[in-house]
């Protein structure tokens, strides 16, 4: 009883805040939690005509099929490698960029470079990927054109498995770095000026200020971003992959999401596709959960 009345008092005291929160709450229930019910089709042989209630139950059959799939380890490897390399090379860049912007003293120059850096984010993936295909073409493409100028042979980049990950990840970096930097810029803006002033008085140079003021202040944001990224470690967006790959380079390019797209959606194997997705998300959840525990122990930064 006591608990209940505390809840009501809280509601009453902050009713306008809760009223403002209501639409968000409803949105989450309707569009995030209710559709989660659909995940049960991973345990069914889902038939779209019969619906969830009329379809046959299979238990864990779809998951067994996934682990027995001869391509399971290849998909796992490709997905993990793309994400791990993506994190290693892609994650620090927005931070460095944000700090660099922060240090620029010419306001006009700062604004222009910042705008240029996040513009690629607004170009559709379809356009970006066809640009990549054209740049890498051995027949008049920019990259091979430059190679030829130095007397090097043309390379058919998109036909050779070993180049795919580099191409894919660097495209992602080019497209996303500027936009991701915005978040860190916001965090930087929140650092009190007094700290820098005090440091200057104490005789700390620019580099020391960065090491001992800027980075520690950014740390919570960095940790949280890293945690969020860990959650999607088994996810690589299928649309960018399928725009760029072809069967000759499945070996390095095929990931869970593109596989689900081909086999599940195009081949009407919805239940199997859902089983793969559920597996990806469980792994992601487990990773975030444990990483969160670790960071909580280390410095108290947590997601929840």
């Amino acid at each position, binding site marked *: 009883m006591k608990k209940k009345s505390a809840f009501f008092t809280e509601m009453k005291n902050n009713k306008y805040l809760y009223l403002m929160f209501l639409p968000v709450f409803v949105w989450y229930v309707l569009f995030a939690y209710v559709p989660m019910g659909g995940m049960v089709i991973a345990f069914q*042989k889902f*038939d*779209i*005509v*019969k*619906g969830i209630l009329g379809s046959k139950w299979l238990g864990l059959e779809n998951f067994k*099929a996934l682990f027995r*799939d*001869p*391509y399971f380890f290849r998909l796992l490897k490709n997905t993990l490698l793309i994400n791990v390399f993506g994190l290693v090379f892609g994650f620090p860049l927005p931070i460095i960029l944000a700090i660099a912007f922060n240090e620029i003293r010419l306001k006009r120059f700062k604004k222009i470079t910042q705008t240029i850096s996040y513009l690629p984010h607004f170009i559709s993936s379809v356009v970006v990927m066809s640009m990549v*295909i054209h740049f890498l*073409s*051995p*027949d008049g493409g920019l990259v091979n054109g430059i190679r030829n100028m130095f007397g090097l042979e043309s390379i*058919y980049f*998109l*036909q*050779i*498995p070993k180049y795919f990950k580099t191409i894919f990840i660097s495209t992602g970096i080019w497209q996303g770095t500027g936009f991701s930097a915005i978040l860190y810029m916001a965090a930087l803006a929140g650092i009190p000026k007094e700290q820098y002033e005090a440091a200057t008085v104490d005789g700390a140079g620019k580099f020391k200020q960065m090491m001992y003021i800027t980075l520690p202040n950014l740390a919570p944001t960095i940790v949280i971003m890293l945690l969020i990224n860990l959650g999607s470690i088994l996810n690589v967006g299928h649309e960018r992959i399928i725009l760029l790959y*072809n*069967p*000759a380079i*499945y*070996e390095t390019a*095929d990931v869970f999401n593109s596989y689900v797209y081909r*086999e599940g959606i195009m*081949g*009407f*194997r919805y239940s199997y596709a859902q089983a793969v997705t559920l597996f990806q998300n469980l792994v992601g959840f487990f990773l975030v959960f444990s990483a969160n525990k670790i960071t909580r122990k280390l410095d108290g930064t947590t997601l929840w």
Partner: protein
Amino acid sequence: MFMKKLKKAVAIVIATSMSVMALAGCGSSSQPTSTSEITDTTSAEAGEIAEETEDKGDPVEVSMFIPSRLPDALYTEDTLTFKVLAEKMNMKFDIETVVNAEAKNKFSVIVASGKTNDVMAGTLSDINKFGMSGAFLPLDDLIDQYAPNLKQYVCDNKEVLAQTAASDGKVYGIPMLTAVRTAMGYCIRQDWLDDLGMEVPVTIDDWHEVLTAFKNTDLNGNGAVDITPLILDRAWENYFNNFADAWGIELNGNNDYWMVKDGQMAFAPILPETKEYLATMAQWYKEGLIDQEFVTREDTNNYHILNNKAGATCYWTGYIAGMNSNSEVLANDPDTNWQVIQPPVLTEGQAPKTFSQQAAVGGSAWAISSKVSEEKAIEIIKMFDYVYSDEGSMLFNFGVEGDSFQYVDGVPEYTDKVTGSEDGLVTWIRSNGMQPLIGIRQLPEYEAASCANEDVKDQLFNYVENNYFYDINPSLVLTEDEQDKYDAVMSAIKIYVDEELLKFIIGTTPIDKFDDFVNKIGEMGIQDAIDLENQAYARYTSLSE
């Protein structure tokens, strides 16, 4: 008020008497769908439409899902053919549509929502799949009782029936019937052959010689040796193993590489002929005779041909023949002369044949939702039947006589309004609801009349007249149970074969690894899939015999 009631009463009498006559006519259980409610129509209007509607009463409302062929001309109730059809059948259509590229998705979304339109157009395989799950009515009995044209063209034609029926043997969708068997043909720059003083290539060795000459000569006169001797289209059609024709095999990924060999289903990639074929292709690729970027190049035919860079191709014959009058092509080289030639053979004297062909049954079809009332189903099947009739076929191939076509010496020809329209004939036809992706009969006259000139027409019918066709390799339909077992082994094998075939051709995997490739497919369980295919093939042949 009184007058209205009286009119209604009269109308009921008329409608009933008419339906009695109709009953006597077809000897079936057909019922009139509703009583007529003729209200304040002026006498002039009534006179005009009297013939059509006086015995039919209120129009039957039919909701339909039909994919549109062009994104900037989505079908509506006022689209020419559907408007005429609705008037003719005394129906009122409610058309839902998306552009064809999105149709497959939309189709399954509609079916999954449970709010299926009365009539649904989609691919025949989807219709059969969902039909067996109960989304669509089996049409066999309805056809038998109410639809003489459908009976004649679908049920009584064994080949068509075998390709139309679902794996439970029932007909759920009325398919589009194709008119011309020609699909992709071997096309070559005849003018360049003449420049080189070479004969039309007959054997694979001849082809090698011709392609090599194309590669090493500056035939397009731009000062550089930059001709792509042979282009293959993987990215769009995914039908690029045409030259396997010479070895008598079909490597068609769109049909999971199945073919009929000695009366049995065979998985083509593991046949010994495939090794020889791949070795040849790998050699051609290495020598630069094949487009080095064929794996990733989209729209390869337009790219090469419009830029005057292609020597030979395997593509839709009518399309390539039409390039001879393309203004962009002629601006580059007014002498451009693409000609379709016979399929390649291994040794001279063999009969040239190709597997690339249109099945009698095209991929599109329409079906009736299982949720409609029996009366409405009868009306709809009659509508389907009309579309298959000679009159209905003229409507969906040529449009309206006197408007979009006229008979010249008994042969239908499009009027100037169509041929001279701003965006060209094909666009006009498609925007006005002709050649829709539903259960129609394409007429050979349509194919002939839509050819730009005599040369295109001759080329289009060349393979038909010379009968350069192998027997078609059917796309077999599996039962639900078979499909599960099939997917369990085939989805992995399909990926492996898709990959390796390309790698053999571009040389990433050397051809002496071919035996390993065959063994691996064996280990992955291909025999199970072969057995399933043979079961399905037995059903298929029993329907077509």
